[in-house]
C-alpha cells in the first residue's frame, strides 16, 4: 500500500521591499490656488530645505540637487524627475531616480491627485519607492518612520506658506501666473517629485549619519 503526501509551503527566501508612501492632506485653499501656488519655485524652495538647484532638461525632465543639513551633518544628492499622464489641474504621475553616491540610490514613482473638498483641496499622493545600497541596508522599517515625519514637516510648511500667500498682505505682490516655459502641470510635477525624492533621500542620509 502506498500513500503519497505533498505539501506546498510559502518560501521566505526573498521578498519585495518596495516602500510605499501614501498620504493626503487637506489644504484650506481652493484647488486652483493650490495648483498655482505650486507653480511658484520660491514656495518649493522654502518648503524643501536644502534645495540647491532645479534645472529643466526638457519638457518632461528635471534635474534637482538637494543638500540636506541635519545638525552638523550635510549630505548632497542628485535626482532626475520625469513627468507623465498629466491631467491638469487634477492629477499626474511622475517617476524619479536619484543617487546619493556611496550612500546608495532610490527610484520609484508617484501618483498625485488634487480634489476639491469644501472650501479647500484634498491633496493625495501615492508613491512607491525602492532604495538600494547603504540606504537599503540600514533597514526600511526605520526609513518608513522618518519618511512619514518628513512628509508631515513638508506639508506643515507648505500649508503655512500657502495660507500666507492666499491672504492679501501689505507689501506682498499678488500671486500672479508667471510665464512658464514648461507648462503649469510640470511645475506641480516638479513639486511633488521633489517632495518624494527629498523625503526619501534626506531622511535616508539622516539615518546613515546617525547610525554610523
Amino acid at each position, binding site marked *: *500500500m*502506498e*500513500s*503519497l*503526501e*505533498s*505539501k*506546498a*509551503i*510559502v*518560501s*521566505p*527566501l*526573498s*521578498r*519585495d*521591499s*518596495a516602500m510605499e508612501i501614501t498620504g493626503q492632506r487637506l489644504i484650506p485653499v481652493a484647488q486652483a490656488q493650490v495648483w498655482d501656488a505650486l507653480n511658484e519655485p520660491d514656495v518649493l524652495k522654502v518648503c524643501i530645505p536644502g534645495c540647491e538647484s532645479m534645472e529643466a532638461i526638457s519638457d518632461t525632465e528635471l534635474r534637482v540637487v538637494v543638500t540636506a543639513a541635519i545638525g552638523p551633518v550635510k549630505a548632497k544628492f542628485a535626482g532626475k524627475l520625469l513627468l507623465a499622464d498629466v491631467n491638469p489641474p487634477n492629477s499626474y504621475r511622475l517617476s524619479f531616480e536619484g543617487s546619493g*553616491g*556611496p550612500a*546608495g*540610490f532610490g527610484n520609484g514613482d508617484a501618483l498625485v491627485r488634487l480634489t476639491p473638498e469644501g472650501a479647500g483641496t484634498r491633496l493625495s499622493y501615492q508613491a512607491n519607492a*525602492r*532604495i*538600494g*545600497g*547603504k*540606504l*537599503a*541596508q*540600514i*533597514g*526600511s522599517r526605520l526609513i518608513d518612520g522618518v519618511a512619514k515625519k518628513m512628509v508631515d514637516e513638508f506639508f506643515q510648511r507648505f500649508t503655512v506658506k500657502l495660507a500666507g500667500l492666499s491672504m492679501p498682505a501689505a507689501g506682498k505682490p499678488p500671486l500672479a501666473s508667471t510665464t512658464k516655459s514648461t507648462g503649469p502641470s510640470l511645475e506641480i510635477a516638479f513639486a511633488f517629485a521633489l517632495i518624494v525624492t527629498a523625503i526619501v533621500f534626506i531622511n535616508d542620509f539622516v539615518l546613515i549619519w546617525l*547610525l554610523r
Partner: protein
Amino acid sequence: MSTRYFGARTKRNEDERLLTGKALFVDDIVLPGMLHAAFLRSPYAHARIAKVDASAARQRNGVVAVFTAQDLGDYWKPGPLLVPPPPIRDAIFNERTQVPLAKEKVRHVGEPVAIVIAESRYIAEDALADIDVDFEQLGTVAALRKAIQPESPRVHDDVAGNIAAQVHQTKGDYSAAARQAHLVVRRTLTYDHGCAQPIETRGVVAHWEAREDKLTVWDTTQAPVPIRNGLAALLGLSEKQVRVIAPFIGGGFGCKVMMFYPEEVLIPWVAMNLERPVKWIEDRAEHFTGTSHERGQIHDAEIALTKDGKILGIKDVFLHDTGAYDPYGLTVPINTQCHLLGPYLVPNYDSTFTAIFTNKPIVTPYRGAGRQHGVFVMERLLDIAARKLGIDRTEIRRRNFISSEEFPYNNEIISQDFVPLKYDSGDYSAILARALETIGYERFVSHEQPTLRAQGIHVGIGVVCYVEVTGIGPYEGARVHVQSNGKVSVATGIGTQGQGHYTSFAQIVADQLGVDLSDVEVTTGDTDQFYWGAGTFASRGAVVAGNAVNQAATIVRRKILHAATKHFECAESDLIAAGGRVSVAGVPGHSIKLGELAKKANPTRGAVEFGTEPGFEATSYFGPPCGTAASGAHAMIVAIDPKTMILEIKRYVVVHDCGTVINPLIVEGQIHGGVAQGIGNAFYEQLVFDDFGQLLNASFADYLLPTAIDVPRIEVSHVVTPSTLNPLGIKGVGEAGAIPVGALFAQALEDALELPRDEIELLEIPLSPNRLWELSGSWNP
C-alpha cells in the same frame, strides 16, 4: 612515550597573549609610509557600468591614487577556480569567477568598482564620494525558482537560465524502491543560512620591499600557502619572493578560506605599484556584502519507507543559490548531497542539484558548508514519517542506523574530496542512547512534559542525529625541531583562527619528546616558516596537520634516542625521555638536557658518519585516502510562549564522536562555538534580500546574532570510535556543533507548540518568533 598531555584538558598556550592584548592581528601592523585603501562598491545588484570618472577623487588632497578596472591593464583577470568540480558523470559546471574590480557590469551589491589609496582611511572614504559612476540598471535575479527560467535576466550574459552547475548522483534504483513502499512522504523544504560574522573582519596589509625584491602580505586568510602561490603567479614573482603571514585571526569559519577576494588580489598589486605599504581593513558594513555568505537551498524531497519505518530510498531535487560567481566550485551543494544520507542505511538514493547564479554576494562554505541543509531534509522527513507510521521518532532512527558491524561503509556517492563517500567507523546507536539518557528523554516525554503542559507551559524536546565527514585531504605537513635551548619548535602550513593549534599540536609533541607543554612553540600561518599546505577548512586541522606533527615528532624522538644511546653508550630500552631531559634508567647522574644533546648533535667541527643529519629535526607529510566520519546527536528541551513565540532553551545536550580526543577542553570549545552559530542559523539570523538583490539588513541592528542569553549551557559527552584512517585515530570536530541545529529546532518547536501536525509543519530554516507566528496563522493553542 608518556601520555601526560595527550587527552588532557590543558589550558591553552596561546590564551594569555590573546586575553591580554599582546597577540598580533592584521590591523596591528603599522609600517612607515603606510597608505590606506577604501573601495567603492556597487549599490546595484545588477547594472552595466557606462562610465567611471575618478578625476575629482584623484585631485582630493591626500589621495595618492585611484584605480578602476581599466587602470589594472593586464593584471585584470577573473580569479582562479579554487575547487574544480568532482569527477561526476554528466556533471554540468559553468565556471564564472569573481574579478578584481567590476569592468563592464556589476553582479551583486557590494561588488568593488574602484579602489582609492590615500594617506588615511578617512580621506580615502571621503574620496569615494568624488567618484562619478554611471550605472544602467539591469533586471535582477534574486529568487531561485525565477532565476532558473530561461527568460529571466542573465547574471552572466552567456549562461542561460543562470545555471552554474547541475549534478545528478544515484545509488541503486529509487523508482523501483518507491513502488514497493508502504509510505512515501514528499515535502518541499527550504534552508536559508547566513553569514559567518567573525568578530574580526577581513584585512590585508602588503609591503613590497624593492631593495630586497620581496613582498610580504599579512592576510586574514585560512589558507596562507595557496594565497602565497596564487599571488606570486598573478604578480609575476617567484614563490620564494612572497611571504604570506596569517597572524592571530579573530575567527574564520569558512569565509576566510574563500581565496583571491578582489581586495586580497588588489592590495599587493597596489603596494608594488606605489612602492609603499598599503593597508585595507574591512569594516562591518562592507563585510555584509563583500565577504562570502552561505545561503539558500530549496529541496523537493521524498522518502520511501516500509511499514516498519525502514528507509527504502530517498529522492531529492534541489536548487542551490551560489550567488553571482562560483569560485568555490560545488563544495557546498555536494556536501548537502552527501550529508543528507546521515548515519542511516539508504539503499537507494537519487539526488539532483542545480546551482544557480543570482545577483547576490557569492556563496562559499561557512561552518557546516552545506551539511546542515542535507541533515535538515533527512531529519525532517524521518520525523514526518515517524508521525505518519505511529513510530517514536528516536525508534525510527534506531531502526535505520548503519550498524557497527557494517564499517567501513561505502555510500558510493562522490564527496567533496573527489572520492566516494565512505564511513570508516562509528557507533550511532551508542551516541543516540547516550543523548537520550543524558537529557532524560523517557522521563521527560512520559512525566515532565505532560505535567508542565497541564500547567499551561509549552515545552518540547528534540533529538536529531548526523554524520560529518571531516579531515579530508589532500595533505598537510609539519616540521619539528629541537632548539639548543631545549625548546621545541613546530611549524605547519595551515593557519589558526582560534582552534587551539598552538596547544593541541604542542600536546602531541610534548608527549612524544618528553618536554613540558610550555616548551613547545608552535608556528602556523607563515609561509616562510613552512612552505607547503592546503589550509584550515573542512574540520581537518587536527586530523591532517595533527597527524603530520605526530609523524614528524616520532622521527625526532627516534633521532633523540639514537643520539642518546651513543652519548651514554647504552641500549635504547634503558632510556627515559621526560621533563626535557634524556636519562638512563636507574643511573642517577646519567642525564642530559635535551637542548644540550641537540647541541652535541650539531657540531661545527669534526667528522661524522655517512647519512648523519645535524640536530634533531624532521619534516613529515600526512594525506588520507578519504575523509573520516565523525558523528553525533543533539538533544534539546525548549520552552516557548505561544503568544510571543519567544523561546527559552532549558537544556542542550551534545553527544559527539570525534575519535581520539587530544584536548577535551578544546573540543568542547569547538562544539560550544558551533552550537552558538547553529542556534543563530536556526532562529535568529537571516540575510534578507529583496527581489532586486538588495540586502535589507546589513547591520547588527537587523541581522541578529545570538547573544549570551540566547545560547544555553551545553552539556557535552563523548563517544569514541577511533578513525581507521590515521595513526592517531582522530576525527574532526570543528563544524559539528553547527550542523544539526536547524533540524533540532524544527522538531523541538513543533513538539513545544503542539501544532496540528497535519496542517502545520516546520519545513524551513530560519524560524523566528515572527515566522512561527505567520506559520501558525489563526490557529490558537
